[in-house]
């Protein structure tokens, strides 16, 4: 259900300027350019070597074009968490916050450049709230995409470039994480590990030791995978582990493209492998160009950590 009260309240914002045009505090200058180039490791001489720059079609020192917005950002003032909304965009975000759409994430950014700024130029920026989408369901939560456009002009009123930003203002689908202590460990997303119960834990523990196992009925010798507690052939609940040689062939396979899942680094190949012992197993195929994978391809297993989880992986048999 779209939020009618919110939609009514934000409608007047569409098409509005953030406020009066913003004029850069400082003209384009070599010091700020050099600081930018240092930070980005940018060795392009057009930004700092007057002589070399003069020999290019730029004709002299010019500012890095993607630095455009830096000329008008307010600096340290941005760090004050309690400052009141100072322009229409911030008012709009405050409105979303009031309605519970507290999350914000930038999704797209587009710069177009008409001319390069030269030392001494002074930038003026005029920003507009261009559009607000209808309500969308996203992985982060229900929200609205807000598109803003900023036009940058020089002191002569000539268009220097423009910047379009698309942000999602959303209602977080999960409560925000507790602020952790300052020495929080980096939380890299990992693959989802298997829960370990009576019937399957031993198989993953063997993998942890670097061994690929197949469950074998102690009574009749039938092999089975995935593991389960009773032999379907003789109904015995006695079983043992048999190491697999790890060799086999591809029975079928897919290439996972979408949707991306943190920790998995798609695209990845997943195959259903016929092990030479006669059971089948699903696992990744690695180090093989996707177009070379085929049904019947001979593969061999090794046990490796992928996304923080010890897993069997298969490579083409050399």
């Amino acid at each position, binding site marked *: 259900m779209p939020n009618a009260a919110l939609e009514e309240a934000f409608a007047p914002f569409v098409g509005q300027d953030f406020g009066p045009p913003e004029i850069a505090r400082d003209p384009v200058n070599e010091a700020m350019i050099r600081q930018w180039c240092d930070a980005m490791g940018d060795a392009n001489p057009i930004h700092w070597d007057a002589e070399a720059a003069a020999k290019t079609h730029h004709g002299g020192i010019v500012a890095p074009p993607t630095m455009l917005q830096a000329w008008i950002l307010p600096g340290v003032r941005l760090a004050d968490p309690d400052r009141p909304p100072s322009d229409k965009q911030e008012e709009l975000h405050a409105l979303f916050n009031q309605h519970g759409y507290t999350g914000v994430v930038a999704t797209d950014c587009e710069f177009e450049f008409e001319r390069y700024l030269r030392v001494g130029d002074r930038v003026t920026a005029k920003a507009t709230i261009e559009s607000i989408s209808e309500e969308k369901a996203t992985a982060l939560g229900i929200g609205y995409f807000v598109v803003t456009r900023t036009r940058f002009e020089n002191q002569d009123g000539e268009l220097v470039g423009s910047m379009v930003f698309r942000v999602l203002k959303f209602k977080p689908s999960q409560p925000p994480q507790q602020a952790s202590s300052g020495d929080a460990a980096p939380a890299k997303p990992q*693959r*989802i*590990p*298997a*829960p*370990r*119960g*009576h*019937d*399957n834990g031993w198989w993953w523990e063997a993998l942890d030791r670097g061994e690929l196992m197949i469950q074998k009925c102690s009574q009749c010798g039938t092999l089975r*995978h*995935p593991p*389960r*507690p*009773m*032999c*379907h*052939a003789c*109904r015995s*609940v006695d079983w043992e582990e048999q190491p697999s040689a790890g060799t086999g062939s591809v*029975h*079928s*396979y*897919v*290439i*996972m*493209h*979408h*949707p991306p*899942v943190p920790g*998995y680094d*798609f*695209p*990845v190949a*997943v195959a*259903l492998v016929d092990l030479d012992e006669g*059971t*089948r197993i*699903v*696992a*990744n195929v690695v180090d093989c160009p*996707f177009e070379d994978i085929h*049904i019947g391809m001979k593969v061999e297993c090794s046990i490796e950590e*992928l996304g923080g*989880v010890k*897993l069997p992986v298969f490579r083409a048999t050399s």
Partner: protein
Amino acid sequence: MSITLKDQAAIVGIGQTEFSKNSGRSDLQLACEAVSAAIDDAGIEPSDVDGMTTFSMDLTDDIEVARAVGIGSLTFQSQIPHGGGAALGVLHQAAMAVATGAAKYVVCYRDLNGRSGQRYSEGVSGDLITSDSIHWSWYIPSGLMTPTSWVALVTQRYMHDTGTTSADLAQVAVSTRKHAVTNPNAIFYERPITLEDHQGSRMIVDPLRLYDCCLETDGACACIVTTPERARDLAQKPALIRGVAQGSGADQESMTSFYRDDITALPELGIVANQIYAQSGLTPDDIDAAILYDAFTSIVLFQLEAYGFCKRGEAKDFVKNGNIEVGGRLPVNTHGGQLSEAYIHGMNGVNEGVRLIRGTSVNQPEKSDHVLVTAGVGVPSSAMILGKMD
């Protein structure tokens, strides 16, 4: 004709495990042992069992028990909600099933590590290891974690075995979309696609592209069932259920029956098909239109073969030349299907099946005396044949 349950069913075997404070084994194993003991007590074989019923609160899926115990095909499955209230509910299900012929031997079971596992006295905890969570864990760590991926793995093998191509799958997408284009209720109303659009759409899980996948939708569908006698007196032209059945195949997993000799065979569909044709006395030749569950294009091909409209591997030819469009041999998914009308887990297809019998579909074929309506593919499945009342 009406059926009473009087003298229609009997309990012929019982089995149980020991009772303890810590069984030391899984819920699944407890279920297997009890079911196995009951089978022995009855003096039957696991393969004689063709129906299973349990509590919806049970952590163990019926098909996991079936695989482990060596029970083969199923024609009846049910689960009863609301904790202990289900105890005689499962007996009731079993009695109905055997009385009506839906199954011959129904196992009722319930397993519980109620002391060492989840103790109901401790309230609800979110961290249960169920047979379901273990089932998915054989696939999720490798990244095979979406319905598209599970179907794609079977589709890849099917394409390899039958010479079916992505362009053949495109034919299903394009034909189905044609029906949605004239259906104002369809999400893709008035938005046709071409084979080129399909081939240019992005890869979701190779070999399945975006236009091989249904659209996820918000919505709901419902229908009312009553006896034929009552139906005669009501406002609408009734759609008579000529046959309806469930089916679970041997070695069934939910979406991932990857351990059968032929992973593309999908025997559960054949089990359903045989029952509904036998019940109705009809054959595939009698079916005028079909609502085939189409979460993905490829599964439409699987069903055309399983429900007997063409031979194994020939579905790619069957879907060509408008053959599954209105005017063709078998109009399929005249509402636009789940690929193009809406994805309501097959229930929008039930309603379209009824419209076809009433003659009120926006894409009404000339003849629609018998309509096949099917359910999900790759899982224990079900289907029905609708017909007209005399």
